[in-house]
Each structure stands twice: as C-alpha cells, then as structure tokens.
C-alpha cells in the first residue's frame, strides 16, 4: 500500500499535477463555488436578470383574465404551456425544468419562484385578433425559438412567403408589446409598491396544484 501511495504521488508529479513539495500546481476550485460564480455571471450577462423578471411577471399576469398588453388597441392574452425553465442567481438549486401542459401554473413552480428561481425560458402562446402564435422565449436573448404562426392562407409561393414574413413581423410586435408593458410597470413606482408584493403573494399561494386550469385566476 505504501509503495502504491508513493507511485501515485510520483505519477502526479510526473504529470505536472503536483510540484516537488507535493503541493498541487493548480488552484483547487470548490465546485460549489464555481457553480455559484457561473450562475451569478449568467444572471448579469446582458442584463438577463431583467429578462427573468419580465418572463416571471408575464407568468404571473397570465393568471389574470384581463389582457396582458395591447397592440394596435387590440388585446393580447398570453398562456404558458409546456416546458418551463427556472434559474436562480445562487443557492443549492440553480436550475429547475418543468414539463407538462399545466406545469407552468403548478404550485411547485410558484414555490420555486418564491425561493428565487425565476423564469428563464418558457413556451408561450400569444393570442391577438383571434390569431394564435406560439413561441419559446429565453430571458437572455429573447430569441424566437420553435415559433408557430396561424396557418397560411395564400397558395401562391411568393404570396405565402409575404404572408409568412408578415406573421414574423407581427410576432415580433406582439413580443415587444408585452415586454413594453412590463418595462412600463418595472420603471414605475408601482413595481415595488404594488406589483412585487402581489407577485410574492402569488408565489406563496403554493398549495396543491389545480389539474385543469391555471390557479389563482382573478
């Protein structure tokens, strides 16, 4: 055993992992600390924290039957459906992913949000003028992923392209309108006075999940 230990130490020296004094040549990094640093860097990169606050507020607001925003004076309603990823700036749990049609509205998600795990990416459907658009958004880039538009009605290829590009533009405007509504609230005194307390109260309603409908509909 002694010779095996000696061989192991010699091997480490020959590999350059330790110096002549037996001490490690590279700083040993605590994996937990490294993970926390990574989570914190991800939060501040490109102001991702603002994107997470936005998506979390949208999830909260989508519980309401009132439209979340308007575009061209027409209401936009949002529903979260499907996959949802929450991320935290720190803590033992830095990411949670939930799947399931009603998962976004489950009590478990609100409980996680109350612990600082905010919405980082989500699948949403946006309804406007009886048109439904589906999209996955992420808090860092707000890129459109796996977007779906209403069915194209034109038959001619060139007209189909124009119709599709029109839907692309509309989807962009819908996302901007929802974000704009959030920004207006976020930069108002209402944010800290009213909306954040309401958000926290909603997060703390984490009783057993309701199976069929989003919980807490007001």
């Amino acid at each position, binding site marked *: 055993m002694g010779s095996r230990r000696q061989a192991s130490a010699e091997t480490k020296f020959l590999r350059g992992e330790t110096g002549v004094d037996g001490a490690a040549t590279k700083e040993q990094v605590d994996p937990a600390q490294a993970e926390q640093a990574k989570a914190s860097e991800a*939060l501040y990169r490109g102001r991702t924290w603002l994107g997470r606050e936005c998506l979390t507020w949208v999830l909260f607001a989508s519980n309401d039957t009132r439209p979340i925003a308007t575009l061209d004076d027409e209401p936009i309603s949002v529903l979260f459906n499907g996959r949802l990823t929450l991320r935290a700036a720190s803590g033992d749990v830095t990411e949670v992913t939930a799947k399931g049609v009603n998962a976004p509205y489950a009590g478990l998600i609100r409980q996680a949000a109350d612990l600082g795990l905010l919405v980082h990416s989500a699948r949403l459907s946006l309804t406007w003028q009886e048109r439904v658009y589906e999209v996955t958004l992420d808090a860092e880039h707000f890129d459109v992923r796996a977007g779906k538009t209403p069915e194209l009605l034109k038959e001619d290829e060139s007209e189909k392209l124009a119709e599709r590009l029109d839907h692309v533009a509309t989807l962009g405007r819908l996302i901007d309108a929802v974000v704009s509504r959030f920004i207006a609230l976020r930069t108002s005194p209402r944010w800290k006075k009213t909306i954040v307390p309401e958000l926290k109260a909603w997060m703390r309603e984490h009783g057993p999940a309701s199976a069929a409908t989003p919980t807490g509909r007001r």
Partner: protein
Amino acid sequence: MPIRKGALSFARFRLSGDVPKDTRRWLTKALASRAFEGIDPKGDEERASGFVELEQSERTDFAPGSVFEGLSALFAWRVERLRVPSQALRGQLSEWAQAFEQKNGRAPGRREKTEQKDVIRRALRSKTAPTVKVFDVSVDLGARELQVWATARSVVDEVTEALESSLEVRLVPCVPASQLDADALDRLAPTTELFGDELSRPAPAEVA
C-alpha cells in the same frame, strides 16, 4: 430554408443608426463587401464564411430581384468548413511509417513523420469536399428589424458583426433592456425581493 417553411427560430435585432434613403443600394453594397469566398483547397484555411443569395447559395451577385421581396431583404450567410478526417490522416501516416520501416530498416524520425504528415494532409485536403451550412437572414426595411435564422449564438454573433461593419449601423438585440435608454437602465437593479439576499453581494463586471 427556414424563412420559407417550418418552425420559426431566429434572433431579433433593431437597426440603430443612420439608414440612407437608397436602402437597396446600401444593403446590396454591404452584402457584396462581405460576399462569400470559398476555401482554397491548396491553402491552409479550414473555414470560410460570407453572404450569399438566399435562393442560390453559390451566388454572390445580389441582383435586386434575388434580394428584395417588397419591403423585406432576404439573403443568407454561408459557412464552409474543410477538415481533413483525422482518422484517415492517422491511418495513412501509419501505413507510410510501416512501409518506411520495411524499406529503411528503421522507424521514421520525428521530422520525417511531420513532413510526411503534411504531404498526406494536403493530398487528403484536395480530395475532401467542404461541409456547407447556410443560415437565412431577413431584414424588414420598413420596421428596421433584422432576423438571423440561426440557433447557434456563434453564428448569430458572426453575422451581426459582419452586418454592423459593412452597413455601419448598430444592431440592437430586441431584449427588454433595449427598450430603456442608458440612464434609465443604469438606475435599474435586480429586484431583491425576487432574487433573494445574495444580490447584496457586488455584481460581477457586466458582460455585454
């Protein structure tokens, strides 16, 4: 071709800066200045990238009829990679080394091996077809918005960098922060009640 069919996946940007009245000429000139040029099989380049026409990704004429569709401009970013398969390289080098040893009664030296490796690499390179990837790009000239139809961030960054330098505009990502001016943004900080007490620690240096 993602612009034409399938699920929509793109990164969104707003054009910020002066846009000339003759947008078509401005855009066509920019595309031509950063047009795609293929890899020279005799050279050492492993990668080449640049703008191409959307419908025919070998063409870089950018005739108005091929780029403009109403108020939209449609084109693509072509990326070619030429990599010599390492397994083939190792295999041929090993065969050569064995033949060398049989002929010369000794194993080849390091310099001999390096020289032969280069010869084999060049021969294989001339026989290897590059892999090609094409990423669609669309510009809504009316709304001054741009979409890069790629999911890989490295590609999105490369395309936007090329467009910013050739168009001489800034491409601002359509994120929540972009709806605020710089002063308003500086006054904002993460909401402590939502993120928790850990935010009382100093933030790391902002990564753009």
